[in-house]
């Protein structure tokens, strides 16, 4: 009895702490985004005074370029997601269904490569992209992002495709379907949940990326939200925290809502991507 009570008490305290730890910076972001900036000046702490000014400024002041950054992020993340999911589905299908020399090596190679530090690519990549005249274009981010998100997508789809019985393919092929037809008429429709969770994780990864975007963009034409927010500075020294937090909240809330709605997919996707064989 005693142990049961102790366990329950530990659980409740633990759960409460967990909620507090996970939520407070996010909640603080939201609170400050609704707080009047002026209260920061010369104040020992934030005096909360509700306002929508921060949101209004961020969404309407064209010199801040927030809407440009936001559009760039959405467009780039979307085209990267579509390309990555299509490319990795082809690859995952080949590895899970076709016997070829190097079948065991290819996915391990791709997975290993994804562990490289970003900094070890940017020295050369920067010069390369500069030479191509791609600075400040979507292309400068599109190609590296696809390469960067492919390994995770490949492993997620691979772990899903491997669970689908091979009889499905054989039946389709006896009916005269080619490999490619089997993939998009049989395997892909059956893999909708896996494709969806892969797409979600790739989208969030592309939306989050910072180092490439920081180096390969210098103005609003291709600059993404993370770079915009990292470099957001006040004109006269004082950092406009209210504006920064409003911009942060606008960019974060859609991602958090996606994560909350589709948490089941995200959890299975992340674990499949990291630890094979469930």
């Amino acid at each position, binding site marked *: 009895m005693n142990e049961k009570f102790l366990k329950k008490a530990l659980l409740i305290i633990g759960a409460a702490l967990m909620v507090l730890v996970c939520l407070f*910076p996010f909640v603080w972001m939201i609170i400050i985004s609704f707080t009047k900036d002026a209260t920061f000046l010369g104040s020992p702490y934030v005096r909360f005074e509700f306002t929508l000014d921060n949101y209004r400024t961020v969404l309407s002041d064209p010199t801040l370029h927030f809407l440009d950054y936001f559009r760039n992020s959405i467009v780039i993340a979307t085209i990267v997601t579509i390309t990555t999911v299509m490319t990795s589905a082809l690859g995952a299908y080949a590895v899970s269904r076709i016997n070829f020399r190097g079948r*065991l090596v*290819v996915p391990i190679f791709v997975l*290993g490569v994804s562990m490289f530090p970003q900094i070890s690519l940017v*020295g050369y990549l920067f010069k390369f992209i500069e030479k191509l005249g791609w600075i400040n274009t979507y292309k400068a981010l599109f190609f590296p992002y696809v390469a960067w998100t492919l390994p995770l997508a490949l492993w997620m789809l691979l772990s899903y495709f491997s669970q689908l019985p091979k009889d499905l393919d054989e039946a389709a092929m006896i009916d005269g379907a080619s490999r490619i037809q089997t993939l998009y008429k049989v395997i892909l429709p059956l893999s909708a949940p896996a494709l969806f969770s892969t797409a979600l994780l790739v989208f969030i990864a592309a939306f989050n990326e910072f180092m490439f975007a920081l180096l390969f963009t210098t103005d609003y034409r291709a600059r993404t939200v993370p770079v915009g927010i990292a470099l957001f500075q006040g004109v006269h020294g004082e950092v406009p925290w209210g504006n920064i937090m409003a911009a*942060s909240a606008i960019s974060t809330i859609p991602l958090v809502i996606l994560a909350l709605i589709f948490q089941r997919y995200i959890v299975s996707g992340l674990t499949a991507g990291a630890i094979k064989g469930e």
Partner: protein
Amino acid sequence: MGGARYPEEKLAYGMLSPMLAFVVLFIIIPVLGTFWISLHRDVTFIPGFKFVGLDNYINVLSKREFWYSLFVTVSFSLVSVGLETILGLAFALILNERMKGRGILRAIVLIPWAVPTIISARTWELMYNYSYGLFNWILNSIGLGGVNWLGSPLSAFFAVVFADVWKTTPFMTLLLLAGLQAIPGDTYEAAIIDGANMFQRFRHVTLPLLRPVLIVAVTLRTIDALRVFDVIYVLTGGGPGGATMSLSMLAFNYYNLGDYGVGSAISIITFLTVLSFTVVYLKVGRFQEGLK
């Protein structure tokens, strides 16, 4: 011949080629290119790209700044992954229990993961602010006085660690939770019949059975922590006095100064450090077996 053994080989290579093209062109070649640059004197404001052999490496390895940065990076990874493992394990144990509201708790734990790193770093930056940050407001209101979080070496180091731990713990939690759920319930029942209490069960049943997942998760997170950049770029830029200067941040600074030769040499050393952990990860993960 091989062609007869695997009649569909050509098709397989065709299906893999778009993926491999992206990886080779935008990861493999850039890494090799950075290595190439590291063997040259390549400084924006000094004319001439010149082969210098290992000079950049000798230059880097003879700098105190580099060794300090290596020390900072390794300490950061150890402390950050250590804290994250303890916290992640605690969270996973909580989420593994049957109780009311478990679904909501599982959703909440994902929030730090969903917040973009740069955005979470800026929020932490604001909370650490000396004059109007949340932490000093709390410290001031209980009469302890403020701390200059990002201004002194030790507190800046931990400030960066905490921000990183917050962001990355959900991932650890999810991996460990998946590991916990794979432990069959009857092992616990057997332990209860044998009279093991809650702590003995954790020590002698949970931990040993969770070990393989724990090792994979820790290695994976260590690989990630060794290349830390975003959080540091926003919070401290590597300061004060190099106290939070990770290898990635140091290399980035050299690129920013226009010294691509030295920046590339540091990048390649970072690469080799991470690569050694990657090999361990691929070995302990037993990925090859999963494919058979």
